[in-house]
């Protein structure tokens, strides 16, 4: 309860700060709606009927009707402004207030959070539910205010005119709630039984409609039969489950909808009203009509008010998740804000070990390595030897479990993390191209399109990375939108072209340390060849780490590091390692041997 309150208070503060005007309007709107409904449907009708019953002069009724009409003329005018301007304009800001917090966090949490499925699910859920949480919160405000307003208006009306009516309504309401609970229990059980079957159905449907599976399903027809059969079996089971629950549900619903609703309100209460009016003459007809007409409204007020708390609790669960996420403290932070020096520094790893989580074996074991400024290091080894992990540690995407990594004699954790990363250019195989302009895709930062220095720098970077010819073919040059995400005229680059843009990023950044992780494995031989040329050019005067399966591309490195099971097992120049006749030699023979033919 306390948590629910504090969670919604947190959301209220956030929303109110983002757009006080809109939040004020939401409250006004709920009060206005219920108040006018009460005035129109209870007071006005009663007054007009009262006038008719007791033959009051016409002008009295006319004035009352006129006043209500006028109130609506104004209210609907404001309503139009609210729905067609304020709401559309302010709601995105509301969403953004929360999203921005989430995004800031998502961009700064440790990368290891993405490897942890629990944590990653929290991230996905938080982001996916962020807008809904706000919508639910707004609905909750409206619901709470409206139902309280019903009590303050219609409720008081009943107390003043005929309090006994409230007893009928209350009994009907309580009894219905009780039955609803039983019904919910049955429905909950049914849902639990159906859920795994629905999951199966969804999976089968997905395999049939996603294009990814279309080829397999055509080549291996029998798999389709198995999947289809699963689907139909699931359907049969669901029908059985629904049938079994049907009788009980029908009975309970009948008790709820008729015995505790129609029977009490349209039967007993009406009988009571008629008795009071006809036999006792204790109530006038006009009041009786209005009282009867408003039982539904009163009951709705009770139902809504009683649903506020469970709904708030449900929403609170989401808010808790979101807040937990926002409050997560990343482990990889700058211990102090040391700046990086202008000249290239030596990189040294001292007894570095690393594991992705506590209960899995180490990915890296006691790595000790010194890399002189400007040295070209190639890292080779089998799949899973720890090559990529090693460079991820260098980029400080993870911190070692033990041992230290130093840059220019200083523990890299001491540097300002953004400064430190700015110093490193990275080329991956799985680079991303963004739905933005070509220049933005190279600079990878907020840009001022008219900045001449930037434009020149980007153009040069693209020419160096071998993208020059393609650039020249673009009508809009650097302003060409990439991907067809937003612009039908956008350009979709091929894998090799995209890779060149990714390389241009490192050229533009002019980082002193370059890390290349299998940048060419998806390319055909010619594209790979020209890529290697571009990278060679970029490497001049820089410290380079190069990971590759293609030993042909690593043989010119100053030093080759051969990793196996997270350890350095051999290192030296190509010729030294060949002379050594160890694992590297074996790998080399496997690959190069055939070319000797």
């Amino acid at each position, binding site marked *: 309860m306390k948590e629910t309150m504090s969670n919604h208070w947190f959301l209220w503060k956030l929303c109110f700060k983002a757009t006080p005007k809109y939040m004020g309007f939401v409250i006004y709107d709920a009060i206005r709606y219920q108040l006018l409904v009460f005035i129109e449907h209870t007071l006005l009708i009663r007054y007009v009927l009262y006038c008719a019953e007791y033959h009051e002069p016409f002008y009295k009724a006319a004035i009352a009707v006129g006043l209500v009409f006028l109130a609506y003329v104004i209210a609907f005018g404001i309503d139009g402004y609210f729905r067609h301007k304020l709401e559309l304009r302010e709601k*995105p800001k509301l969403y953004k207030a929360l999203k921005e917090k989430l995004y800031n966090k998502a961009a700064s949490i440790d990368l290891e959070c993405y490897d942890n499925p629990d944590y990653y699910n929290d991230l996905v859920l938080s982001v996916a539910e962020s807008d809904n949480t706000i919508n639910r919160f707004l609905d909750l405000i409206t619901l709470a205010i409206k139902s309280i307003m019903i009590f303050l208006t219609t409720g008081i009306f009943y107390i003043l005119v005929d309090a006994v009516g409230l007893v009928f309504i209350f009994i009907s309401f309580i009894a219905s709630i009780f039955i609803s609970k039983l019904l919910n229990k049955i429905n909950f059980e049914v849902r639990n039984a159906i859920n795994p079957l629905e999951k199966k159905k969804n999976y089968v449907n997905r395999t049939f409609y996603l294009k990814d599976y279309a080829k397999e399903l055509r080549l291996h027809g029998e798999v389709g039969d198995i999947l289809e059969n699963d689907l139909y079996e699931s359907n049969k089971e669901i029908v059985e489950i629904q049938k079994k629950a049907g009788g009980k549900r029908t009975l309970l619903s009948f008790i709820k909808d008729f015995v505790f609703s129609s029977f009490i309100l349209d039967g007993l209460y009406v*009988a009571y009203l008629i008795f009071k009016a006809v036999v006792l003459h204790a109530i006038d007809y006009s009041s009786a009509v209005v009282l009867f007409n408003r039982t539904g409204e009163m009951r709705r007020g009770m139902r809504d008010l009683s649903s506020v708390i469970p709904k708030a609790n449900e929403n609170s669960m989401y808010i808790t998740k979101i807040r937990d996420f926002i409050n997560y403290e990343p482990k990889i932070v700058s211990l102090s804000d040391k700046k990086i020096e202008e000249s290239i520094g030596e990189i040294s790893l001292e007894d570095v070990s690393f594991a992705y989580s506590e209960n899995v074996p180490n990915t890296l074991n006691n790595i000790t390595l010194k890399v002189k400024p400007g040295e070209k290091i190639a890292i080779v080894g089998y799949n899973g030897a720890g090559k990529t992990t090693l460079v991820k540690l260098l980029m400080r995407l993870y911190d070692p479990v033990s041992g230290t990594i130093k840059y220019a004699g200083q523990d890299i954790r001491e540097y300002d993390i953004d400064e430190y990363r700015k110093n490193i250019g990275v080329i991956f195989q799985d680079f991303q191209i963004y739905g933005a302009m070509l220049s933005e895709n190279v600079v990878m930062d907020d840009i001022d399109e008219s900045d001449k220095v930037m434009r020149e720098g980007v153009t040069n970077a693209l020419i160096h990375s071998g993208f020059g010819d393609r650039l020249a073919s673009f009508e809009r040059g650097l302003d060409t939108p990439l991907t067809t995400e937003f612009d039908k005229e956008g350009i979709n680059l091929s894998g090799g072209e995209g890779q060149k843009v990714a390389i241009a990023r490192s050229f533009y950044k002019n980082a002193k340390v370059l890390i290349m992780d299998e940048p060419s494995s998806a390319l055909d031989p010619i594209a790979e060849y020209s890529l290697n040329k571009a990278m060679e050019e970029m490497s001049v005067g820089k410290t380079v780490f190069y990971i590759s399966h293609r030993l042909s591309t690593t043989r010119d490195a100053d030093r080759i590091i051969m990793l196996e099971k997270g350890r350095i097992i051999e290192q030296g120049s190509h010729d030294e390692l060949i002379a050594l006749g160890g694992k590297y030699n074996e790998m080399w023979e496997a690959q190069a041997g055939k070319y000797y033919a």
Partner: protein
Amino acid sequence: MALMRFVGYFEWLFYSAFFMRYVINAMEQGKSFERIMTFLVITLVVFSLITLYNNYIENSFLPAQKVRISDKLSRMLIAKNRNVDISCFEDSDFYDKYTLATENADVRLCDTVNEIWGIVCGAISAVFAFVYMFEIDKMIGLFVLFPIVGNFFFGSLLSKIEFNRNKDMAIHNRRILYINRVMYMKEYSKELRLTKVFSMIKTHYDEAIQGISDVTGKYSFKGSILHWLKCMFTFCIIFEGSFLYGAYRALVSKTMPLSVLAVVTSMMVASSWILIYFADAIANSLKFGLFVDNLRGFLEHEPSIAEDYDGIDPGDTIEKIEFRNVSFSYKDKEIIHDMSLEIIGGKTYALVGHNGAGKSTIIKLLMRFYDPTSGAIYLNGRDIKEYNLQKYRRLFATAFQEQQIFAMSVKDNVLMRKTTNEDDGVVIEALKLAGVYDKVQTLKNGIDTMLTKEFDNDGAVLSGGEFQKIVVARAFVMDSPAKIFDEPSSALDPISENQLFENIMNNGKGKTMLFISHRLSSVQNADWVFMLENGRVIEEGTHKMLLDQNGVYADMYEKQAVNYLAVSENELRGRRELV
């Protein structure tokens, strides 16, 4: 279901019109309390039966019936889906329509039926309400026209504005969704940390919000006015107008009894809501109409390559496969030009060339995922279109690059059919050849381990390279006369790659083999090499013939080999001449 809707409207109208009128009339005429009570009890009994019926339909009949409808629909959709040709999945227009049609098709079909009944019942109730009011008083009846104007005239103007506004906003909303995706998807996580791309994204977010605000401004004046008019017509004029008119009739001209005035007030509320629901139902039905259109379009689509095509049995030997002047256009762009080539049964062929040269397309044509735009492919002298498609495809065991793993056991994923324990031997053999058996052995249940965490939290998630090897095992396990491998080794390290190619060659002895690879070293063992460029075979021959030819293939080979050989390109040539 229809009856339920109808009863709902009936109950509403009954209580707000007939019931109240009778009771107040009776009271005014001083009828005895007992008589009124008898009427009340009869009413209650009738409604108890109606409610019981409704509850039965809603709680017993419909939940099961909906599943049955969904089942029928799935059967139709899946049967169609399995029969359409693969190009349908790649035609984005068709595919969009198809997903629109099939997404939650069962739920939406029920909704559509429901909505149609909503229109029918709404129309009947509206007419009934109108006639009833008209009968009470001709003028009052006319008041019902106001919500009609409000809902249908102003309502449609308003939805036009909303439609245009949404259209203008779509681009901005799409950008916001895109940003959302970038912010949580793993693929982007590294770059978000290593670069400043996050500040670019934030700027784009602000621009999108500004864009939404601008669009809002464009329509807000017109929208507000129309909203006001719609509300005034739908609610105020009919409510307040009828009150005023009723009060006038009751008080000034004294021609309306109290009972009728009471009925008029509650009828007005009921009939304007009926009209609002009616208008909504019509608006929704337009949306559902589009859905039904898409659904029909999909179900009536005639595939050009019917998966269930029954033709001649191709037998189980491959003597010769021929491409005769085959051209193929994809999305109006010709990607294979007038290609002729010959594949002799029992030999090994390699397809090489740049990305996009048409290598994979040739295999897709051979597998009849597509048919050539002109020219034809012949197997043993007969156009492949004449064969029974299923049987024809079974001649080939294939391992494609981007193949999928299903949420089934390792064994099922390799065999891709119903399996028994007797299959274990061949599966293990195939996994060994693919070089992934060691890994599979470490899994909890060996080859019976479920793959993916789709249904089983203990399901195994393998690395990309390992999944690729399982896909390759599919080709090993099939005992078919031809085997096709499309880049089977792109994610593998050199030793595994080497081993895999050796296994492919050994396993393929005596079979027709066709493989695509970027590693030209593995191509040397092929009996014949086709070098492709821009959808044409530009060179063909044995590895040695092509090197001697000194053309594009030789150049490509040298670029790859030069570093391995640690000799200059000239030396390389000299050396080759010696060999």
